[in-house]
């Protein structure tokens, strides 16, 4: 038996050949992504034509023909490009509204603190998440409030003070912005309420110690917040009426976003609850707020509410708007979250129950992490919508960024043929930066959340 001689045995690996030209390099990229098939070719050509049509005039308007220097309308009369001196002259108003110039370091500090706290919170690799979250969600709002308004609320009465003839304690005036009468009132009220809570707990046969501690903790925390806003830090008070521009846009949007998410989750859970009363209330709340337009909410909060309230009692205009916007956004958020909850298979609930988890543990550990990851696009959609909806506060005479812009258009000193275009081009860029940023971050989160699914 002879073995046929092997004609050829390969002793080493063949060198890797470069991929075919048709799929590699930029040419391959073009071929695959832009020119594969009739439809894609048509769309590519159409898009290119559109870019060729729009981009050059845009660049010419924004840069080449634009005027960069000048102090009033005369500078921009001759040009057909953007009038950037207009934006520079009004820039302070776009960012701070009518916030007094001498006090503008305060919003600046608030912006800076917000950025310092927010960025590590958004970067998954950054350490100390828990501390960071507490600082951002609990401490930062109080600090921002004190900085922006000036604090020193001059609290006079808490609960007991509202009872007529309670003036035994109206002692000397304020020390450091604090009034003794208020704090004695607060102390006694807190003690009374804690006693009441313990009493009720006893009657119902619940464990009184835990209740008492919880109530105490709430009062102490609340006390710290009150102390912070009541202390006189020597900051000049700045009314919210003077706020405006990007400051208002961000305050309204961030408050709405930060508060509406937890509220929305609670409402969504409430709507899917098995307790009829909770479910009923949640449904009513959600359907009510979804049933009225935001403009109506704002209008009602700003102009109708004072008609119903007795004179003397009035809430700050911005506060009313903030509450309205937040509740409105929460209703939408609830429905988005509910969508996520419904997508979780029943087995997950049953599995959690089988392991012996309670309701909150089931929700917190099993259901919500999955449900929220699912609806990230929906949530961010709501956020972006909310960010842009803040513009509607203009109708209740609060000047957000766009409102300041429109007001700036009416200044006869800057009335030129190009002022309007310049202003809107600038506004478009600013809104784009914010909204695009949010949308990119949501994509990043989505990909990160989807890792579990890929495995």
């Amino acid at each position, binding site marked *: 038996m002879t073995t046929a001689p092997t004609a050829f045995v390969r002793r080493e690996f063949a060198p890797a050949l470069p991929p075919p030209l048709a799929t590699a390099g930029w040419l391959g990229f073009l071929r695959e992504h832009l020119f594969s098939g009739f439809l894609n070719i048509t769309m590519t050509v159409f898009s290119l034509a559109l870019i060729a049509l729009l981009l050059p005039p845009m660049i010419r308007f924004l840069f080449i023909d634009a005027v960069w220097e000048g102090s009033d309308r005369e500078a921009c009369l001759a040009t057909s490009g953007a009038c950037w001196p207009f934006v520079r002259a009004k820039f302070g108003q776009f960012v701070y509204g*009518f916030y007094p110039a001498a006090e503008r370091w305060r919003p600046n500090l608030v912006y800076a603190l917000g950025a310092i706290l927010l960025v590590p919170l958004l970067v998954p690799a950054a350490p100390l998440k828990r501390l960071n979250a507490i600082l951002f969600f609990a401490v930062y709002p109080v600090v921002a409030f004190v900085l922006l308004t000036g604090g020193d609320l001059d609290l006079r009465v808490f609960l007991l003070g509202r009872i007529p003839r309670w003036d035994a304690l109206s002692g000397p005036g304020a020390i450091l912005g604090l009034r003794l009468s208020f704090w004695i009132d607060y102390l006694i009220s807190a003690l009374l309420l804690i006693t009441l809570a313990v009493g009720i707990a006893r009657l119902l046969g619940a464990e009184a110690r835990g209740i008492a501690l919880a109530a105490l903790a709430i009062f102490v925390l609340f006390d710290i917040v009150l102390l912070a806003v009541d202390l006189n830090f020597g900051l000049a008070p700045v009314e919210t*009426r003077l706020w405006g521009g990007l400051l208002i846009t961000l305050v309204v949007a961030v408050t709405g976003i930060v508060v509406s998410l937890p509220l929305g989750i609670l409402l969504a859970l409430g709507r899917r609850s098995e307790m009829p009363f909770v479910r009923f209330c949640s449904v009513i709340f959600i359907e009510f707020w979804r049933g009225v337009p935001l403009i109506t909410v704002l209008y009602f909060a700003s102009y109708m509410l004072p008609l119903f309230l007795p004179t003397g009692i009035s809430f700050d205009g911005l506060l009313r708007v903030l509450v309205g916007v937040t509740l409105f956004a929460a209703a939408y958020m609830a429905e988005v979250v509910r969508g996520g909850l419904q997508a979780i298979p029943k087995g997950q609930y049953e599995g959690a129950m089988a392991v012996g988890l309670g309701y909150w543990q089931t929700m917190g550990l099993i259901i919500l992490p999955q449900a929220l990851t699912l609806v990230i696009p929906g949530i961010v959609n709501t956020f972006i919508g909310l960010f842009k909806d803040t513009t509607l506060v203009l109708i209740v005479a609060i000047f957000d960024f766009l409102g300041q812009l429109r007001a700036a258009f*009416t200044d006869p000193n800057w009335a030129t043929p190009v002022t309007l275009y310049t202003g809107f081009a600038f506004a478009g860029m600013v809104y784009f930066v914010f909204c695009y940023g949010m949308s990119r971050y949501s994509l990043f989160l989505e990909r990160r959340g989807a890792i579990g699914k890929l495995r």
Partner: protein
Amino acid sequence: MKRVLSTLVLVAGVGAFSAAHAAVLDQVKAKGFVQCGVSQGLPGFSSPDDKGAWTGLDVDICRALAAAIFDDPEKVKFTPLSAKDRFTALQSGEIDVLSRNTTWTLDRDTKMGLNFTAVTYYDGQGFMVKKALKVNSALELSGATVCTQTGTTTELNVADFFRANKMKYEVVAFATADETIKAYEAGRCDVFTSDVSQLYAQRLKLAKADDHMILRDVISKEPLGPMVRHGDDQWFDVVKWTVFALVNAEELGVTTKNLAEMMKSTNPEVKRLLGTEGALGQALGLTNDWVARMIKRVGNYGEIYDRNVGPGSRLNIERGLNKLWSKGGIMYAPPIR
């Protein structure tokens, strides 16, 4: 439920009670500033300048009021209001006075629980056309396409005018003044119509302002002035006489510059105006030098006009009807005596 109801009734009762009894002037003095409703931006009447301070004719009326009460034109806070919510804001007590380019009509003076006090500017609806059209009178506009802003009385006035003169026309309406002027500039229509003061303001936004002219014809009466709530005659008087005093000061030649000399004047009319004689200011619930304060801080009516809409401003609107009665206009104020 019963308790809720009774609380509501109580709250409503307290509200009605306190609203009826608190005099606005006393409230204003107590809080230390005048809350003044202005427009959200109307060139020449109220718009924020580069430093963010409100300027304009409507704004200066409020500053004069603050000067009269507090001797400080800065003791006024402005609430920018849209055309829709201006009356509600005044009715609900959010603002003390509405100085927002509002036309005095019977309807508004009666039905809303508000009162007009005095006229600060006689406006009227006019037309702007391209000079190339070679039109000299509004009556030659038959067959024209007219650009206007929606939801304002201008649209109705145009309809009335063209129908009354049996002329054909076509309306193209836009949501904002800015869009309207852009459409006119782009040639969407032959004529741009609005209140004359705003025609001047919008003309500044045209690339070739000199190619356009504002016709002399005025087709409507738009007397503008500040408003207050019904039911407080003292405050009504204060606002009304603030305007009258500004006009009287111009008539008597009292200006910011010559105020010091005028304080020594022997002319009895000037003495009464500036409070060096008599106690007329006190009758209003103010100090006797209330007019002197206004002139010192804000200036007389003529100065306010020049600075905001007249030759001292970009708008450069002819004084026209707003000249003093003694100079061929109809600006006339009852005497201070």
